[in-house]
């Protein structure tokens, strides 16, 4: 397209001043706005987690009162789920990369994109207001009748905050879907799309179909608490269990809203650091769609002990097992990609391999929990806590940090220090397992979740878990330090520091405002490392950045 500006003009220095950021319509800048937002909420959720783990260091309730503890785990869950895990990868990496990967200038609706960020921040601010006023003690699940009739905490404020935030997910999903359908560069067919794009397409599908259901559910809860509607109130002919059905109809697929973008990142990383096309490209692409569709059919496995009929329980149990199929397809295909690849162990690849490990443990224990009888044994114990942290947190954060490191040179134009990057990947992996593996054992022995005190014989495992959390915290703080450091002191990246394939590596680092100086035309498959194509990244294994 137009060759306005010199080679040095990029999206970061094209305009200056706070206003140029707060009113930007550039998807790359909006991605960075999300980076700041989600980092803030991650830090906040992390502080709550730290306080939880400190309390659980000793069997007695000595650091906080039970009431305070209830608020801590509720706010930890709400902040982490709704304001970090769900928006992190689509908001930051999805926004930054999808238009570049498909070879266009921006998302389909740039204004809506900026509005989504503001809605996200508004929802977060309202929730924060509720936190400052004392928080909520309902757990992140807001079950009535406790939340609607009895809890004396700020359910209204926080409920409205989460409700508002939902529209950010819906509109971002809508924007991505239209962008992927209508904005692809000439030659960019559906099966030439990077798997990153497929993963985000599947995520957007869930966001558009699932998030409105949690929106109306939370709205009804808010109306019930504020104006005494009786929809979830058994004394008025309503049914509190219906809330659980509606809540999990969204909130189970929400787990796939968190993990699918991470899987999308992992496919890119595995290809780049094995220098091979992802094995079984079509299967990996369709398994994302498969997970998205199956995700809508399994919500009842959260309700095995809610008075659901045994037939419904059996059906949900069997449907839950089916999710293992597309998940396993992904893991096996990534593993086959490693086979005979020229594997290198740079920081993003360490995160990707860590992801496979954590996801396998999280996924397999998910099959345990999908089994009716076993689930009833460990229901509401730390086994469940450990399982969903392995999947949602381990899965999402490994992909998020791996992706952030991989595309950091593209986003900022600078290379992060590789040694410290590898250190952080190791610390996160070790810290994560040390934190959560003991919780499987605790849960199997019967330690219930959401209690601030426990019998003394469980202290050793709890101390291990708290120690792991400290290592994990350090692993998260390290990147904060060296990534900021690299903004000024990092080595210049150049267009393609990894020698990777993909349109994003054919443009400058950082990219110009409209992404490409010449509109790209695509003539090869994704991950064409065999050299059949003739793109910019086609030269055999250029020197690594370090």
């Amino acid at each position: 397209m137009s060759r306005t500006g010199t080679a040095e003009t990029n999206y970061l220095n094209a305009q200056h001043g706070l206003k140029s950021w707060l009113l930007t319509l550039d998807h790359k800048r909006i991605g960075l706005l999300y980076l700041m937002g989600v980092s803030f909420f991650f830090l906040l959720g992390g502080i709550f987690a730290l306080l939880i783990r400190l309390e659980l260091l000793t069997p007695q309730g000595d650091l906080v009162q039970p009431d305070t503890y209830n608020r801590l785990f509720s706010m930890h869950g709400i902040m982490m789920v709704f304001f970090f895990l769900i928006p992190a990868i689509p908001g930051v990496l999805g926004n930054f990369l999808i238009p570049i990967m498909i070879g266009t200038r921006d998302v389909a609706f740039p204004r809506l994109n900026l509005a989504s960020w503001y809605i996200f921040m508004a929802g977060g601010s309202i929730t924060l207001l509720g936190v400052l006023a004392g928080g909520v003690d309902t757990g992140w699940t807001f079950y009535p009748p406790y939340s609607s009739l009895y809890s004396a905490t700020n359910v209204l404020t926080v409920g409205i905050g989460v409700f508002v935030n939902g529209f950010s997910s819906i509109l971002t999903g809508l924007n991505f879907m239209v962008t992927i359908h209508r904005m692809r560069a000439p030659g960019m067919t559906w099966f030439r799309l990077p798997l990153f794009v497929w993963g985000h397409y599947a995520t957007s599908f869930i966001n558009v179909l699932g998030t409105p259901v949690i929106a109306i559910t939370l709205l009804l809860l808010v109306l019930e608490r504020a104006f005494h509607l009786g929809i979830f109130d058994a004394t008025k002919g309503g049914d509190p269990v219906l809330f659980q059905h509606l809540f999990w109809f969204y909130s189970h697929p929400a787990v796939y809203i968190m993990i699918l973008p991470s899987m999308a990142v992992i496919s890119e990383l595995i290809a780049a650091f094995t220098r091979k096309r992802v094995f079984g490209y079509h299967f990996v692409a369709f398994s994302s769609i498969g997970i998205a569709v199956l995700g809508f059919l399994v919500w009842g496995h959260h309700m095995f002990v809610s008075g659901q009929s045994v037939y419904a329980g059996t059906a949900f149990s069997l449907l839950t097992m089916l999710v293992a199929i597309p998940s396993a397809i992904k893991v096996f295909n990534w593993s086959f990609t490693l086979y005979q690849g020229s594997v290198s162990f740079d920081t993003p690849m360490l995160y990707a391999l860590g992801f496979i490990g954590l996801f396998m443990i999280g996924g397999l224990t998910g099959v345990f929990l999908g089994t009716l009888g076993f689930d009833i044994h460990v229901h509401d114990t730390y086994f469940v806590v450990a399982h969903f942290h392995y999947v949602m947190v381990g899965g999402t954060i490994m992909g998020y940090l791996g992706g952030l490191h991989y595309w950091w040179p593209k986003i900022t134009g600078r290379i992060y220090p590789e040694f410290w990057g590898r250190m952080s990947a190791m610390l996160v992996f070790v810290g994560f397992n040390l934190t959560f593996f003991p919780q499987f054992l605790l849960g199997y022995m019967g330690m219930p979740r959401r209690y601030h005190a426990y019998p003394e014989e469980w202290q050793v495992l709890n101390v291990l878990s708290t120690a792991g959390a400290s290592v994990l915290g350090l692993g998260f703080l390290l990147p904060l330090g060296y990534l900021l450091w690299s903004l000024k002191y990092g080595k210049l990246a150049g267009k393609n520091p990894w020698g990777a394939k993909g349109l994003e590596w054919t443009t400058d680092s950082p990219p110009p405002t409209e992404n490409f100086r010449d509109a790209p035309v695509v003539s090869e498959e994704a991950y064409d490392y065999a050299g059949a194509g003739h793109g910019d990244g086609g030269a055999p294994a250029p020197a690594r950045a370090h």
Partner: protein
Amino acid sequence: MSHGHSSALAHHFDSLEQQREASTLGMWLFLVQEVMFFGGLFMTYMLYRWRDPEAFAAGSHDLNITLGLLNTVVLIASSLTMAMAVHSAQTSRRRPLIGYLTATGVLGLAFLVVKYFEYSAKWEHHLVPGPLFHFSEPAIGGRAEVFFSLYFAMTGMHALHMVIGIALLAWILRGAVRGRFDASYYNPVENFGLYWHFVDIVWIFLFPMLYLIGRHYHGGA
């Protein structure tokens, strides 16, 4: 053509055609999420009606069928004027476009006025859920409260969509007055029309479900 058209093309699209396709797809996806949003309410209605048809029948008898019918006619008429507005935009007729959009807005407001009178009658008769709720039939009593909870939640969400629709309509009307729309660029009018028709269709379901079908339930007799 005239420079009005080229300024309608946003910088990140290659052609007006691509822009039109993108915004239409976006609107349909938005309606999909609207279906899911109202879907939660409709599912709740079905479940509770199946559980306690008597209470639903009794509650249904206390709704004002005349006002409900009037509002149904008003909304169907507004859908007609909206369709005519889209047609006027597609055929570049500016004055009819302004006229039909105005008529649509007036009908929308009329709907809300009627709804206001219906709501205030419910308030006077203690049929609004809450501490003051009182249902005259002793055999049903508090069981009717869930019906009226659903009545207010469903019609309230619908009315909120009407209010948002009228606000959007004012914005479209401003564009029409300024001559922004003609045969080569009418996408905003068309997409707004989709939204307006969707909100109408929701009412077309609400009216029979809340006002009509309960009247023919005779307790299995």
